């Protein structure tokens, strides 16, 4: 059960049982975005307020498995109050962490063609390991055990893709 304990680390279970920033913000003024995994029915609803280039507030709604919900909770704690540029960097670092480990797994087991897809069907581009600063991820690094379970990667990235989409939409509205 070693792999399982690595997947379900205490910090993940903690965020699953006691999710941070849970709820919804009134929209408008908040921007609302939904992430949906049609295969398994997991859903995440993110309300966000961007003010002066900063993600001033974020709340997480929806329901799903421990990985999708804890990832959303961990994400909310990591991005709240951060400048949008830093948030985007974190999204890219987090998704990079998922794909590096994925690529090394493919190599290890000799399976897969190296093309993995995230929950939205977009190809996850494997990052160069040296570009990914796991230190920067802090508590989020607890989710790295997920990559040993490829089917669950889309659970972990669901909220991150939704957040990225939300930031794009807010930027588009502002321009």
């Amino acid at each position: 059960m070693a792999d399982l304990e690595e997947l379900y680390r205490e910090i993940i279970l903690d965020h699953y049982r006691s999710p941070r920033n849970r709820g919804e913000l009134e929209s408008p003024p908040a921007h609302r975005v939904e992430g949906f995994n049609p295969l398994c029915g997991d859903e995440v609803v993110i309300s966000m307020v961007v003010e002066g280039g900063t993600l001033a507030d974020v709340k997480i709604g929806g329901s799903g498995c421990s990985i999708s919900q804890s990832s959303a909770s961990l994400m909310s704690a990591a991005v709240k109050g951060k400048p949008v540029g830093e948030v985007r960097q974190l999204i890219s670092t987090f998704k990079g962490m998922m794909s590096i480990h994925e690529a090394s797994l493919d190599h290890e087991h000799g399976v897969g063609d190296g093309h993995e897809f995230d929950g939205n069907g977009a190809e996850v581009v494997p990052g160069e390991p040296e570009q990914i600063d796991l230190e920067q991820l802090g508590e989020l690094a607890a989710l790295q055990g997920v990559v040993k379970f490829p089917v669950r990667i889309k659970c972990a990235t669901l909220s991150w893709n939704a957040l990225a989409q939300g930031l794009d939409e807010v930027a588009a509205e502002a321009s």
Partner: protein
Amino acid sequence: MSGHGSGSSAAPLNTEALRKDFPLLKRVVNGRPVVYLDAAASALQPQSVIDAMTHYYETTHANVHRGVYATAEESTALYERARLVVGRFIGAPDPAHEIVFTKNTTESLNLVAQSWGRANLRAGDAVLLTEMEHHSNMVPWMILSEELGGLDLRYIPVDGTGRLVLDDLDRLLNGVRVVAVSAMSNVLGTIPPVRLIADAAHAAGAVVVADGAQLVPHAPVSIDQLGADFLAFSGHKTMGPTGIGVLWARRSLLDDMPPFLGGGGMILDVKLDSFRPAPPPARFEAGTPPIAEAVGLTAAMRYLTEVGMDRIRAHEAALTDYALGRLEEKLGSDCRIFGPPAGPDRGGVISLEYRDVHAHDLAQVLDQFGVCVRPGHHCAKPLMRKLGVQATARASLSLFSDEHDIEVLIEGLLEAGRLFG
């Protein structure tokens, strides 16, 4: 339907011997032997099915219906014989004309909606479905509704035990042209009284489409007793290969239906401005059909017939009874099980929730025990909404399933409970 009861006097199955027929059961996953409880998604294949397909490819393969050389004649004969074997398996009165091979159950059901439906329904016509249908017996009618400018889609409700509420059937049937009903729910295991519904539907002037994907592999089914006008099922759920599905249709209906897909093999003649379709079943089999798959399905039908569908049903009904009892005994009220209690109207499909552990997490922990179950909405989202759940973990039985499999399932659920506290 008689023969679906658990009180069959047929000799019990020797699961220990039967398990030897299924090579995949020899696999070890995460250090544990595979406990396969996902037959409702796809069944495992006995060696005889795999051998039949290998032998076909090694000795006989050629395209059907065209060549005059020896192997082409042989492959055509094998393909057409599959129709007879499959027809006999479900007691079809005229298998040579009434069995259409498709890709899967979904394609069979789409064929009915697109061919029969398009030719016979108009905007405003009523279609009666049930709340427990798989998306594949629901969405084709919704697509047709959009194409025709709006059908009156009605639903037979499901009650708290997972049975259909039939008190209001006559009113629901008023003006209905077609009734599409699952012969066994892929979520709840419910085996509804298709015959009763079909008789009422016929009295109201409607035709009846039965989705047999779950029932046909697990209980004796006879067209005569079922009472439906169309019956769809899949090769891979009946221990045959993927890539082949079956549609049985009453010949009187099939004769008047327009083609579904166009191409080679489904025509009598083609000119630059017109075509004449072939008679059924060729009319509905455009392009090279699943030939090796038909050979594999023939072997699967033989295997199931040899084991005995009445014995399979009796075994799975008894094991369902055992499983429901043991889950209750070991997990108590922490485990919520959906669907009717074990009995004549309950098949070996067990959807459950355990404490507040999400179905995906349950399935992930169970995988560490080698247990294969399916988490999710099982392509029945309207039913899941009705049950008030996002996802369930579903264990489904095969003829080789045994009490040990259930004990490992319970062991895994307990571990999930411990892990998630």
